[in-house]
């Protein structure tokens, strides 16, 4: 079993839709959870960072962490064509441990 798993997509939605991106992980020791957005031919860009179960909201983006189920989600409200990118979930254990990246989900928001 891979440490971090994501549905690779591609996921296509119409503009204005609510998008749900999901990620599962296997190691219950993971404590820090991040979502990165990566546009084509660019480096990953940090979107959300959290270290506790529950929800964290930032504008149109909401990150949700369920440590009991080892499941994290990213919700995008009122999706825009500019949200079209690959979304990577990234998980870390503790200081000194390496970050583990999911393979990413490719999202297309159609105008």
């Amino acid at each position: 079993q891979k440490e971090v798993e994501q549905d690779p997509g591609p996921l296509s939605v119409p503009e204005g839709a609510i998008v749900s991106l999901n990620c599962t992980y296997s190691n219950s020791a993971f404590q820090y959870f991040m979502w990165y957005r990566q546009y084509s031919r660019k480096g990953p860009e940090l979107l959300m960072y959290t270290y506790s179960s529950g929800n964290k909201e930032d504008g149109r983006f909401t990150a949700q962490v369920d440590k009991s189920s080892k499941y994290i989600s990213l919700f995008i409200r009122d999706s825009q064509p500019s949200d079209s990118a690959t979304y990577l979930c990234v998980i870390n254990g503790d200081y000194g441990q390496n970050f583990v990246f999911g393979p990413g989900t490719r999202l297309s928001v159609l105008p």
Partner: protein
Amino acid sequence: EAGVVQSPRYKIIEKKQPVAFWCNPISGHNTLYWYRQNLGQGPELLIRYENEEAVDDSQLPKDRFSAERLKGVDSTLKIQPAELGDSAVYLCASSKAGNQPQHFGDGTRLSIL
């Protein structure tokens, strides 16, 4: 705040040739990472530095890859000799500390002919 700067952005070489990538991290960031990203996959760690010390190079193919971080700031990643399977995007990232979110450069896209 200036971001992570990488150069070159693109590099095309023939197999068996040497190649080097350069990274300038964000000022004040002590931790520096080199990743390799293949198409359709997430980044995979090659080496992690804390200041000038390589604290994790377990995934670095040491027969052909080498890296250095002079004075705990800039870093260079080298491949010699390059093989066809080395074609990928090489990403550099930095963070204030080892468990803090990383900030990435735009990478060097390497093509081996």
